[in-house]
């Protein structure tokens, strides 16, 4: 649909929905098959990661501009992809997870003020 009407013809809530879908695809559905950690994740890890991603997917988000929305999502993607490459038992796994959740949460709280 966005191919037909273009980004500028898509309502903001729909555009955010689209970015969320892209986020899910990039960080959860896709894997780097040649990476030792990302190449094979245990069921526990998958469940855990999914619950966090699901949390982000269901968080209501608003943005001032589309460019701003895309930029934020790209930043979160970067963090989430780094997270996918950290073994679950390492302490960085937890800190990166917190960093991701925090980044989204921070945007949500400041975004609402605007």
């Amino acid at each position, binding site marked *: 649909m966005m*191919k037909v009407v*273009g*980004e*500028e013809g898509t309502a903001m809530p729909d555009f955010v929905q689209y970015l969320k879908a892209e986020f899910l695809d990039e960080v959860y559905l896709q894997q*780097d098959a*040649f990476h030792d950690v990302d190449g094979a994740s245990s069921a526990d890890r998958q469940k855990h990661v999914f619950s966090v991603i699901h949390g982000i997917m269901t968080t209501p988000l608003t943005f001032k501009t*589309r*460019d701003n929305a*895309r*930029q934020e999502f*790209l*930043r979160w*993607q*970067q963090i989430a*992809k*780094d997270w996918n*490459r950290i073994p679950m038992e390492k302490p960085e796994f937890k800190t990166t997870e917190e960093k991701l959740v925090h980044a989204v949460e921070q945007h949500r709280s400041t975004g609402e003020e605007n």
Partner: protein
Amino acid sequence: MHTLYHGIENIVGNVLMLRATDVGYGDLAEVTFGEDSSLAQVIQLDGDQVYLQIFSGSRGVPTDATVRFLGHGLQVPFSEDLLGRIFDGSGRPRDGRPELDATPVGVAGPSVNPDQRIIPRKMVRTGIPMIDVFNTLVQSQKLPIFSVAGEPYNPLLARIALQAEVDVIVLGGMGLKYDDYLFFRETLEEAGSLSRTVMYVHTAADPTVECLFVPDLCLAVAEKFALENKEVLVLLTDMTNYADAMKEIAITMEKIPSNRGYPGDLYSQLAARYEKAVDFESAGSITILAATTMPGDDVTHPVPDNTGYITEGQFYLRNGRIEPFGSLSRLKQFVNDKTRADHRKIMDRMIQLYAGFRSTEEKRSMGFRMTEYDRKLVKFGDLFEKRLMDLRVTLHLEDALDACWQILADCFEADECGMPSELIKEFWPTERSEVRSKNP
């Protein structure tokens, strides 16, 4: 002890038929008529009927010619002195220098026993970023270059012959235009690379049968060099001409034509040549790069189609570039984890972003407004094409990887380029190139 046979029963095209005994399949024979003589090869046996393919063509051959069987198949003299020499499709010197006096070795033997082979593990550096970074060529790999007629596949092969970090280059030309032959010779001569090169060249003006021997001669010589611990790169151009020569011969032989007139054993014939590629446990290796032109850009044409089932990937040459999407080196993953830590990731990410650029182009052509991110993608695509995809670009692998990072840094912020943060920490350039060129 050789029996002389007189009297040829029939001549069809370049195939002579006579009755003889004690003759082996693939044996050579010398056909003498008047002052002339030519070699011929047994290509079919049916009871005592022997079919000979005559190398110089059957024109002027009378039915009372004398035929003497040599008792062995096609051979090629081999020694170190081959380097720097140029021969034609039947192994005669083309460079005006004397015949080589060395031990002959058999041609078109079986391919190497799998037991002697090792799993490929070394890359072949070519200095061409689209190969080294994105589809790394691996020692012992067999890869075709699928190309539309008119694409610069011969200049590409010539550059690979100059730049590839191997010990010996064996170049086989099949149905080459005379200009192309001169181009190869002059390019290699000027760069001083002829001294590590052997060329077997069949031009379009030479008899068709000689075309059929070019890959076999090249690969026989390559195998001997590989057994002497040399890393050998065999460049063949153009395999479609080779297949066409097979077709021509098969039709004069009245074989039942298969798909589009090609012989039914096209696949086996091609495979027998490509399978010569090898990496020896305790010696050198043979890597094969073969240009295959696709008539009308048609991948379903029998030659590229069959080739695709044999080789380990393919390069597509289109619009003067090695196309990043269709091209694939199936062995690259064996080597690109040992080059530099960022190699695999940058290879993936650059192509993903380039795909993004292509869809942005599509969007732009439909007249949609460009977002800020779209403009970054467009800049990225242009820089990628200019700095890396252009076939004139020569960069060492490490320099090419650095160039990839520079393109990313010129177009994106570090946290939106999609590269892992730890690699960004290590490799992200400190300056954009615009800044760099201002402060030299």
